């Protein structure tokens, strides 16, 4: 301890240790590169060596990771040991997220179809051109615009519910749990319980209720707009509680003194909400909207189960389209291209959304 600060004991790095660390890292790297290169050449048919599977490269990567860790400790002593806490997570992320994403881009530029006898080949921009001219893709993207636009409506409903649950109503705890129940249900279960049972045209209780209201022949998935709206209503029913949780947490964290001051100044309930609560809640609201938008962009399960994208593509989503291309048609290259392009579109959209939202929040607060 010196000057009142606690300092960790430092282990001195012996000069020879650093050199050994460098050599271990170089050897590990060289081994990894050689094994990977040999496998790649074998897979491309450039040499006659065949390993049977890609495990040798995986093991060489793991060995390289160990060599990297050992070299860090030998070279940097205590600081190197601290690095070891982060290194496994970094290597895991690299292997399981970054590498597959990059590899995915490679696959996206191939004509890989699992049923093609000639395997897969680099096909340049063919998949992009196909996508550009693919009416199913554009139709699904248009549907996504509608689905994402409804997030604002979902937010408004969620905000209303959160305000309600934040007041001193009777059985507040019960309602808080009850409102969370849809969020606990699997979307697949929702598809069957609501989409295929409650809304069943002949005997579904919701269909009967609609009949009682005067809708002569209630068909929830026959007209394109009704089908689209019904799908998003089911999805919203599952996910609105998620927004409610976020917004409720935000409301409970609001400083009471500001609201009390407004009350003393004679502000009406609406003025209190619009001038104080809403602006103070903007950061939480933006978080809720962004997260919900990301989830909305991935909408697939309910669509696949209830309408399979129909009628005539009216409810199709990009994810359900990718699912059909990959699972039903083994069209690996093209399905990956759609997924990668969609990923890029999502990144651009969310980035822009964040910028606009941040500016708006700054302006309002």
């Amino acid at each position, binding site marked *: 301890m010196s000057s009142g600060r606690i300092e960790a004991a430092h282990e001195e790095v012996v000069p020879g240790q650093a050199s050994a660390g460098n050599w271990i890292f170089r050897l590990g790297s060289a081994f990894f590169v050689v094994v990977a290169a040999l496998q790649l050449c074998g897979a491309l048919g450039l040499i006659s060596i065949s390993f049977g*599977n890609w495990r040798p490269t995986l093991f060489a990567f793991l060995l390289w990771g160990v060599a990297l860790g050992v070299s860090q400790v030998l070279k940097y002593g205590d600081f190197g040991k601290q690095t070891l806490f982060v290194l496994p997570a970094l290597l895991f992320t690299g292997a399981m997220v970054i590498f597959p994403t990059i590899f995915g881009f490679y696959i996206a530029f191939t*004509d890989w*179809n*699992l*049923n*093609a*006898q*000639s*395997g897969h080949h680099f096909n340049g921009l063919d998949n992009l051109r196909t996508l550009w001219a693919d009416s*199913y893709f554009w139709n699904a993207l248009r549907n996504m615009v509608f689905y994402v636009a409804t997030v604002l409506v979902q937010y408004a409903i969620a905000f209303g519910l959160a305000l309600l649950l934040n007041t001193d109503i009777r059985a507040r705890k019960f309602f808080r749990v009850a409102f969370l129940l849809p969020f606990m249900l699997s979307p697949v279960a929702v598809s069957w319980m609501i989409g*295929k049972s409650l809304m*069943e*045209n*002949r005997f579904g209780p919701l269909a009967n209720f609609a009949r009682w209201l005067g809708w002569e*022949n*209630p*068909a*929830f*998935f*026959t007209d*394109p707009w009704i*089908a689209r709206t019904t799908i998003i209503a089911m999805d919203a029913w599952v996910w609105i509680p998620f927004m409610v949780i976020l917004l409720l947490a935000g409301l409970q964290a609001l400083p009471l003194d500001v609201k009390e001051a407004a009350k003393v100044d004679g502000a009406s309930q609406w003025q209190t909400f619009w001038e104080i609560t809403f602006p103070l809640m903007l950061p939480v609201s933006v978080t809720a909207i962004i997260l919900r938008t990301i989830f909305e962009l991935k909408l697939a399960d309910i669509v696949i189960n*209830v*309408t*399979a*994208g*129909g*009628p*005539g*593509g*009216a409810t199709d989503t990009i994810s359900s389209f990718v699912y*059909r291309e990959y*699972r*039903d*048609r*083994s*069209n690996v290259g093209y399905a990956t291209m759609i997924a990668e392009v969609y990923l890029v579109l999502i990144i651009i959209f969310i980035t822009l959304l964040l910028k606009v939202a941040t500016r708006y929040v700054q302006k309002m607060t």
Partner: protein
Amino acid sequence: MRVHVYELLMAMQKSRRDFLKGTAGAAATLAASSSILSSTPSFAEDSIVSQIMKIPGAGNGSPTDADWQKVGALCLGPTKANVQPGEFNGVEFSFMGLNNQNLHNFLFRGFLTPWEAYTGAKIKWIDLAQADYNARLQQSIATGTADFDIIEMGAPFEGDMGVKDLLSDMPDWVKTQIDFDDYVDYLKPPVGTWNGKIHRVTIDSDCHTMNIRTDVFSDSDLAKQWADWKDKAGLATWGAPKTWQQLQQVTKFLKGKKVKGKEVFGFLDQPKPWGGFQFYFTGSRATAYAKYPGEKNWLFDENMKPLVNNPAWVRAIQDVVDALPSEPADQINADPGTTAFQQFLPGTGALLEWWGDIGTMARTTDTSTIGDVVDFDILPGSDDVYNFRKGQWEKLASGPNQAPNMAYLGWGIYVMKTVDSDAKRHKAAWSAAAHLGGKDLSMWTAAYPSGFQPYRKSHTNLDLWALAGYDKKYIGSYMKSQSDSYNHPNSAIEPRIPGIFQYYSIAEDELQKTFAGKQTAQQGADNVAAAWDKLTDKLGRENQVKYYRIAMGLT
């Protein structure tokens, strides 16, 4: 036979009256089918088949693993004739199959336990859910990582396996052991073969048949109203339609009609995609128009030019578009599962094309309300058939053209070529497959819960079904519709080419748009044809044409 079907059938034995309430139609069809159903040889009282058909026997609940092992042990005779005790000691191989409804692989394990004990071989099991099956299989084939030596597989995938030469050829001794000649004709080569070599030990069969509500077609009020209906399409007196033309009129006629106070509909279409399987149903509507007698081609010609946009197919697609307004309100969103289990069995619709399951389930499932009023027939015919060679419609001198659709062609057991290099493993794997596809054992799987339907001529022996506790009239009616389809000279067989389900899946997307009114039947059919051509090019046209000809037995 499915588990719940079996259990309910067994439960019904307690009330003989329930069975005897069977329809007059069932009795009539049984009588009409007597030539087929009684043509099989009888059996000895103490024969193996008569012994196993009593395991566990009526009223003793669903069979258990102990029963499967007992059946497997009793059916070891043919194995013992070809294999010495302990001959496969030290041999170990893996078996990939399904785990649907705790059937398939679960039964195979039980059947093969005594086989393992006798031969000394050991089996490692790979169980797959149906939903994972296609993706796992295609990935294994494409990446060359097949980690199984024996596989339970549907015939449509034979092309995927065959072109990569992954399948072992069936030895002659297996052909003899399983009594190959006993298969119903349509399951004989080219089905189960690739490039002239037999690869499959069949354990199941498939075909679409028509399920008919007898109460609707015997209703006197409807009969009177039908007399005033203008376009009868040849159906002079009220009754079940025999042609698609009649079926269209009947469906339009029944819109808004009631039977005993309940709203009734005619035919139920399946417009919603179902992972490629919906296309089988559009196919069943088209076969009578598109499958010309003596011509094997009906989806493609011999050069793989799609026929799916010819006038026959367009007419079938248009029929669906025309019929949908007369069907239940949300029919556009009905897949095959919906029409069977949420509509027809609970009492909606008078006519349904489906696999053989419906025939038995109609009388046995809890949700079925039509048990006493259902009858069966092969798919309807057509007054005229399109001759795509001549480019014209023709009326046959023999009457309406019929062409039952053998949709999916059933499950089989296939041995992988990986065992061929080791004579002992090769014999062991084929012996296991032959045991599962044995003649006696197959009668048991047809009658008891297994996931498999009858597929042999000998399965039409109603006395054997009776040993398991079945009512002969009921089973006779069911088997008649199956047999008439299996043995039809103009049955439509699908091409087992690589990627066949990709073709079906693409077609489903375009058909869905057509059924929703976003394009005309011709435009939709043209789009399907264009997409199929594009896919054929992508998969390699030259090879696909070659494989098509092999699959259809055109070479």
